[in-house]
């Protein structure tokens, strides 16, 4: 068993980056995730593992530092919160286009605009659909505990390198600021330069002797070539969709209804399940772990099995609910319950929503 600690989500994430063998972190402070860079600067991983930590001049610089670093085959990461992530959208689109592995963490806060600094989930659409320009997708992991803030970092790096893609970790102010017990995984050594050169022949870290130069680019001036490139990306996304769907089921076997939730909301909903079961309502929880690829298949299965309805529990005006509806395709009821702008729902009101919108409705 690894080391047991009581840590904030943001701190666990930072420690996990060091332990995951990250080579570099580049970021710009923003609440509620500044603890990530603060922890790293205090921990001095350049002494522990050789990891580079740099406070960039902005989020735009940070994301482009990931482009540079990831493009050389190193494990690089940044973190920010909603407005900062919006600033990164051009860079993220470039990373996707140039197929550069890296990990981007969004500790979501209330929006739009400057909004507030409270936990929110209103960047779902940005994470899994829109965001930057062009047809691309980002594998997106949503931790719902401090443990997962730690555990998902190496998973994210694995996905990033397996598929040569930027990977999102979408957390929020609640998960970032709370402390929980966390079992830290054993440190994974950083790849040596030689290992990187061997493992990632595509990476631009100095042309191999007698070999061909490598290029990181997202530019394909001929539309037919760009189309080919896009088809390649789409095939990759299909592959990811096939392999990388992650979710968790709680009290679902006998359920008449399912809450569908992720991150903080899933913690609240878990309590609501308890409250509901105490009242004799058979509800379970489908906790979405990978926001993309989305757990459409399991939703389909429950639909086929005749579930009476799904309640999407989100701290948003209704975003993930669209993906649930697309999976259900009209075969059963899908409703949404959300609180906005950084307000966290209470377990009681989630249950009430279930009763009103699905059971009563």
């Amino acid at each position: 068993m690894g080391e047991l600690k009581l840590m904030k989500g943001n701190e666990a994430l930072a420690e996990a980056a060091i332990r995951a063998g990250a080579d570099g972190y580049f970021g710009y402070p923003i609440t509620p995730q500044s603890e990530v860079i603060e922890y790293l600067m205090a921990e001095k991983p350049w002494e522990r593992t050789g990891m580079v930590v740099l406070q960039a001049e902005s989020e735009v610089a940070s994301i482009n530092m990931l482009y540079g670093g990831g493009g050389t085959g190193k494990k690089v990461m940044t973190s920010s919160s909603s407005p900062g992530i919006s600033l990164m959208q051009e860079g993220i689109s470039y990373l996707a286009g140039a197929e550069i592995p890296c990990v981007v963490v969004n500790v979501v806060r209330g929006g739009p605009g400057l909004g507030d600094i409270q936990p929110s989930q209103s960047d779902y659409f940005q994470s899994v659909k829109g965001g930057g320009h062009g047809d691309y997708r980002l594998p997106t992991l949503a931790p719902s505990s401090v443990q997962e803030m730690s555990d998902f970092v190496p998973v994210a790096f694995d996905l990033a390198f397996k598929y040569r893609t930027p990977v999102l970790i979408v957390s929020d102010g609640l998960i970032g600021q709370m402390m929980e017990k966390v079992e830290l995984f054993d440190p994974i050594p950083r790849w040596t330069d030689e290992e990187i050169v061997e493992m990632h022949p595509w990476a631009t870290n100095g042309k191999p002797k007698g070999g061909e130069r490598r290029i990181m680019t997202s530019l394909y001036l001929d539309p037919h070539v760009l189309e080919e490139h896009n088809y390649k990306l789409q095939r990759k996304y299909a592959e990811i969709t096939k392999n990388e769907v992650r979710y968790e089921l709680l009290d679902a076997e006998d359920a008449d209804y399912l809450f569908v939730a992720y991150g903080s909301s899933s913690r609240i909903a878990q309590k609501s399940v308890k409250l509901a079961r105490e009242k004799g309502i058979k509800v379970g929880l489908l906790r979405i772990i990978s926001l993309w690829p989305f757990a459409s298949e399991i939703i389909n299965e429950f639909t086929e099995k005749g579930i009476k309805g799904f309640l999407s529990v989100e701290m948003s005006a209704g975003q993930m609910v669209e993906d649930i509806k697309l999976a259900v395709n009209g075969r059963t009821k899908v409703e949404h319950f959300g609180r906005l702008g950084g307000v966290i729902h209470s377990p009681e009101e989630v249950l009430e929503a279930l009763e009103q919108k699905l059971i009563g409705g």
Partner: protein
Amino acid sequence: MAELSVQEIIKPENLVYQKTKLMTDKALSYCPGCGHGTAHRITMEVIEELGKENDTIGIAPVGCSVLAYEFMNVDMQEASHGRAPAVATAIKRLWPNKVVFSYQGDGDLAAIGTAETIHACNRGENIVMIFINNGIYGMTGGQMAPTTMIGMKTSTSPFGRDVALHGHPLKITELVAQLPGTRFVTRHSVHTPAAARKTKRAIKKAFEAQIAGVQGTAFIEIVSNCNSGWKMTPIDSNNWMAENMFPFYPIGDIKVDGKLIEK
């Protein structure tokens, strides 16, 4: 004495100059006479002469030289518009023993990328920044750049740059020279053989210091032509440049070994 015939001269043993193999065989996408080509080539000659072919990572910008990666035969990254200094920063910090340079136009480096330029230089990133100042946005069809001179006509200053309307031309090179992080700041051109040779020496000096691990950013401006954007022949554009741009963008070293040159 019998004169040698041309055929007698053209023999492998008499070869004194040929395009470096660190330039690919691909035909340059640049307009006839555009200085980008020369700037590319001398940069690659320096890398070759320093024996760093296998240890160099270059960053191409968004601008006409976006395709630099098609022509420079070293590992290359194509950065988003203006962000090459950030890209280079990360690469150099992660691979301190590699040679890292960025190559940017004036729109890229001095408009959208101003913050990244200033901060990379201010941090003193140990990289070589090559900056092609042609006073215009060449790639997008000749719009005004931050460096466009007063009175100069472009497609977005069709009646000439007017300070009240468009602001002043920006001497970004003089600005970065003010920063403690820059070690070597210099301005050159590549329109004559002498100028191109001087520029090459400057570039070499910059790379040598990086390789030696001397801390600080090297910033090399190359004032260059954009005959398409300026709507001139290549020769005319070079003459116009010498006459009109050099007085405003004077050629020469601005900062050497971390010290500003007194004028």
